[in-house]
């Protein structure tokens, strides 16, 4: 017997159909309020990168997140969560296989799954998915059972059949049948540890709500701070072209493309009686004077 199993970290080549993106916005860190998470459509904002050798082959790992400025165009903090897509359903039944009574599992109804996600429940496709559980009595408090999850280790279409127990009782068990719309999933851990033979792990109850999540990639969170000024804009102030109109006192700072970046009015404040200069003022001008275009100013 060998237990030389392997593990690795690989660049994910997940389809955007298996991704969920949530975000929240706050204009400052000081704002104390609850965080409202909103959804983004991954098919519109997450673009996989293709291999340089084949435009139809995903490179793996590298994705571009294209955040629309219509949503992400304000100064402040955007928290973006990129996580595997969740499928919510209820457990149809719990049981064992007809000729493997020690193999326990959960049954799900494919018809309860949204149509676009039903292919995930075909035979063998749920292997590696994670199941989290919702509380059965959801009257108050937290609806999700925290810190509890199971991993699906196999899934097949299955049909419940009754097996005679030799008396009036008949128990139900599952046999694999591709004509059925019920899917039988085995999970881990589902058997008792050797040190606690009576401690059978919880894998769920019939009619209990569950969240089924793929494990095609590790979730990440981005905090994007949108700022008005960065190194580049500070360099405009230091190193870019500038003009000072002596006629009207308009001081213009241009960006490196010689477009008007900022304009200021320069003036002096004098004592109204003595005419003594009191202040030299530089005041930002919010109505841009277009006649201070750099090309026009320097066209002589």
């Amino acid at each position, binding site marked *: *017997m060998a237990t030389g199993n392997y593990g690795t970290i690989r660049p994910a080549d997940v389809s955007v159909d298996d991704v969920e993106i949530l975000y929240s916005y706050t204009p400052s860190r000081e704002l104390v309020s609850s965080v409202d998470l909103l959804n983004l459509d991954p098919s519109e904002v997450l673009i996989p990168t293709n291999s340089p050798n084949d435009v139809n082959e995903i490179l793996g*790992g590298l994705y571009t997140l*294209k955040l*629309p400025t219509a949503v992400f165009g304000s100064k402040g903090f955007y928290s973006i969560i990129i996580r595997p897509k969740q499928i919510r359903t209820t457990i149809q039944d719990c049981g064992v296989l007809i000729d493997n009574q020690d*193999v326990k599992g959960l049954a799900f109804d494919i018809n309860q799954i949204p149509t676009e996600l039903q292919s995930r429940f075909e035979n063998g496709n749920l292997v590696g998915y994670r199941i989290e559980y919702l509380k059965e009595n959801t009257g108050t408090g937290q609806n999700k059972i925290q810190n509890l999850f199971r991993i699906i280790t196999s899934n097949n279409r299955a049909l419940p059949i009754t097996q005679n127990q030799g008396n009036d009782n008949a128990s139900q068990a599952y046999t694999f049948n*591709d004509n059925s719309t019920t899917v039988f999933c085995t999970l881990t851990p589902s058997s008792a540890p050797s040190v606690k033979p009576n401690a059978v792990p919880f894998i769920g109850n019939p009619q209990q709500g569950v969240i089924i999540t793929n494990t095609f990639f590790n979730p990440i969170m981005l905090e994007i701070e949108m700022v*008005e*000024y960065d190194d*580049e804009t500070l360099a405009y102030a230091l190193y870019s072209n500038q003009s000072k109109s002596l006629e009207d006192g308009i001081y213009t700072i241009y960006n490196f493309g010689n*477009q008007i970046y900022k304009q200021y009015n320069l003036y002096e404040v004098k004592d109204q009686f003595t005419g003594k200069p009191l202040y030299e003022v530089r005041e930002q001008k919010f109505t841009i004077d277009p006649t201070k275009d750099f090309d026009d100013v320097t066209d002589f």
Partner: protein
Amino acid sequence: MEYIRKKIGLESYTVRSIPKSVLITNTEGKTVIDDTNPKYFYGKIPNYIVDSNGNYILDSLGQKIKNTVDVSLFLTQDVDDMGIFSDKTFTPSNTTLPAPPPNFNSFTYGRLAGAPLNFYLTGENTLSGNTDDGYLNQVRSYRLDVNGNPIYVPFLNTSDNSKKVFNGVISEDINKTIYSIGSNPIEVSDYQQNNISSINSGIEFITYKNEYVRSVDEYGKNLSFFKTNFKSNSGGWNINNTSLNAIIKKEEYLGIVFKPEVNSVVFINRGVADIFERHAILSELKTTNDIDTNRGGFVRV
């Protein structure tokens, strides 16, 4: 969960161009901006990309291009092998799919209900390459010519199981010997009677009698053999190496990548231990090595 922080300047997305078309002369005769002009975007971050004249840039389909803040990400997946699965029989679907779905892939579609086995089979795959003449000895007859060299008789089956397997020469001339190992005898017979033009089963070898290959083995010893080519037409997934099963995961095999091998010749399951248990175990020890190996080191000295 990985946590990434980025600081992005809004200035990169802010329009700083002032098109001439948005300039007007006011009542005082001064040139000013008509900020009601739809082409005026100065100081704003438009939802769609505009050029320096204030016109929306269109894509190849004539659609406006969304203005986006682009961030590169690297997504990874942690993978662990959960070990071997167990095959189970299943009742196939009553409805058989007439053709595989587009771009059918056994992983993404799984064991698709209604998909027959031939959806999973690949076409015949031809494999070819060079090797040594080691198999030539297997197809020679027991007769020798006047020089003491073996005589190769076409279509003489040298296999131990000649009804099921053909090992033998197909043709021979002064330059080469063509022979087949592991072919279907019926197919060879059909070929011999010119019913078919080629033999697709087994491995075909061609050994060239006048061409030598010199090589060195792993111990540095010089080797020499006749140049030999091989060809197989029966590679890929076919009905002989593929079957459809439901697979389940037995918890006791989690993380075990090979089937358990039991080395004990005899295994006695004693069930409930009784007062004779220890004596019975000791009676099984015949050598000092047994002390270490019996019951995985159960007995300790």
